[in-house]
């Protein structure tokens, strides 16, 4: 079977992104923050449409209106939770209130992951083909409880398996039309990787951190495959520790010397570095992809993820 290389790149620039942020800032101030969902939509649209795979840009089709509805629901939800919390505090049941609040926040995590992936994937389009997330909320919830229970009884050691199980669950339920992702990472490898990274970082007074970062990235990318009817695209990282070192150090310097105004340039640099260092090869014929995933417009999970400040990639 003929093997082919696939090209991925980010072609945006810091100046354009900065202008978008400035305009968003103005509109946010004028609307006292209510513009936030629209601001987010324009920013994501810019980032997606400047990410180019095989000469075709991605598209983010989520809208401010959808995310605004989710935003309102998410806020109502949080307000209710805090109202419950403070009424318990008011009747002098502080300990119970704190316990319930933590339990609540913690039980929210799998629901937020489910909701945000469901929305974000349905809004990601390439060559007219929608991505999709086919995970089951109840199933993820039960699995998550089980993994967290194991993490607690092993005093956190199981955390590595929790991360990988969760990643595997989520990634393997992402579809691109009628193709699906496969993730081969396991908790054992991940545990050893982190143990090694942790100690070497300590020994080298933090310098190894960049190489640890490179290995984490590599572990994610190299274990990823895209599959359609047995034909695959394999992903390989070409990132280096030195590469991560100069990326992160320069980003840090940009932020410090521009008092944060240069943030857009650091986003662009990071996206360029990441996309340039994912190599893809395989026999999957992208021209054969078919539209198979439906649209999904409920952004509540996406907005909750924002409010709790979740990073998107797990």
């Amino acid at each position, binding site marked *: 079977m003929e093997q082919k290389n696939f090209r991925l790149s980010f072609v945006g620039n810091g100046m354009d992104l900065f202008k978008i*942020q400035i*305009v968003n800032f103005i509109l946010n101030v004028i609307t006292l923050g209510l513009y936030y969902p629209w601001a987010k939509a324009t920013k994501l649209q810019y980032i997606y449409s400047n990410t180019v795979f095989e000469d075709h840009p991605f598209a983010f089709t989520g809208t401010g209106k959808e995310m605004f509805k989710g935003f309102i629901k998410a806020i109502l939800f949080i307000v209710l939770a805090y109202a419950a919390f403070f009424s318990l505090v008011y009747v002098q049941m502080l300990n119970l209130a704190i316990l319930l609040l933590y339990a609540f926040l913690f039980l929210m995590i799998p629901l937020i992951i489910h909701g945000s992936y469901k929305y974000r994937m349905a809004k990601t389009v390439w060559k*007219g083909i929608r991505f999709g997330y086919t995970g089951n909320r109840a199933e993820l919830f039960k699995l998550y409880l089980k993994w967290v229970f194991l993490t607690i009884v092993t005093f956190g050691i199981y955390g590595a398996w929790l991360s990988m199980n969760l990643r595997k669950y989520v990634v393997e339920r992402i579809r691109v039309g009628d193709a699906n992702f496969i993730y081969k990472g396991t908790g054992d490898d991940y545990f050893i990787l982190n143990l090694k990274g942790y100690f070497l970082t300590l020994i080298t007074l933090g310098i190894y951190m960049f190489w640890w970062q490179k290995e984490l990235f590599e572990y994610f990318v190299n274990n990823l495959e895209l599959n359609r009817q047995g034909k695959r695209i394999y992903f390989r990282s070409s990132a280096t520790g030195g590469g991560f070192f100069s990326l992160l150090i320069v980003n840090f310097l940009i932020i410090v010397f521009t008092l944060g105004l240069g943030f857009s340039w650091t986003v662009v640099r990071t996206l360029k570095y990441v996309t340039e260092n994912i190599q893809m090869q395989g026999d999957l014929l992208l021209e054969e992809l078919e*539209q198979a995933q439906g649209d999904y417009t409920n952004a509540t999970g996406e907005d909750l993820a924002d409010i709790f400040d979740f990073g998107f990639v797990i």
Partner: protein
Amino acid sequence: MIETTVQYYNGKFALPYQVRIEVANNAIHLFDSSYNTDNGIAFPLGQCHYVIIKDQAFIYLSNTSTDYIVVPKTDEHYETILTGIKRTQTSWYHQLFAQKWYTLFFIVVFLVVFLFLILDKIVPPLALKFISVKQEIALGNQFYASFTADSEIDSSATFVLQKFADELQLSKTYPIKVTVVKDTIVNAFALPGGHLIVYSGIIKQMEKPEELVALLSHEASHVNKRHSLKSIVSRITMSLAISLITADINGLSRSIIENVNVIRVLSYSRALEKEADDEGMNLMVNNNINPVGMKWLMADLQKTGNDIPKSISFLSTHPLTTERINDANGFAKQYVGMNEPLNNQMQSLWLELKKAYH
């Protein structure tokens, strides 16, 4: 009518079809071998959007972005389509985005200044109007309860100092309740609604009863002028505003803005101190007590302030600037002839207090 051939992705398969296009009546018309109509299928430019990658425009034909055509720069319709779509983009976002950099910069500066003025000068006084004296006292009582929960109160000194304060007319609106807390901190402060907290450390530093009157007058003026309530309201509105408008900004810019706010709060509180000095001295005069006590208080605190670690001192957050002392001095000069001694009751209460903290 010009017809050209471009690639069309239909949103069902990831492979292109060759289609012919025409632009007319603010719409892109697509002619596909499968569309056997004379006008093709029309896509109004108003529902299209585009992205330019290298020398190609990706023209999305609907807001689902699943069907699009790829128009190369060399295509005859390229400019027509792009300008046509741009003309339909009339949202605030697009209009702002089309502005020059200096216009945007000007708008940002204007908005920041405008917002600051509204939140700093207009919202707090308005909010204060809606909070009644009764609510303020209730709020102060709550603060007082949580404050006293973890401080050691000297109840006998509190009793004596309360009697001392009752000899003075400190407030027309608020019940002034003093509390002495056993602590070496040289400080005193006022809570909303009338609670004054006085640390034993500051009583120890004072040499004359007039200084105690000055201190109580100063703190009572904070209460009368609703200073703590003002600071609370101003701090809440500002931090709310900051978190709203920086929702989309990264951590560092946010922390810079927040730190600027801390400096603002500090200078604001210094302005309040100045006002409390002036009002306090007026209160002293109204009580027939020579305001020179304020100057003595400041001089004593300044003189002995050196022994005390700066970080815990009343002087570090509200330094006794030369300006404050000069002001007190100037004020006192108008009352040089005023020689009313404190009444006997106050004199003996003062001695009793000083006996406890010699």
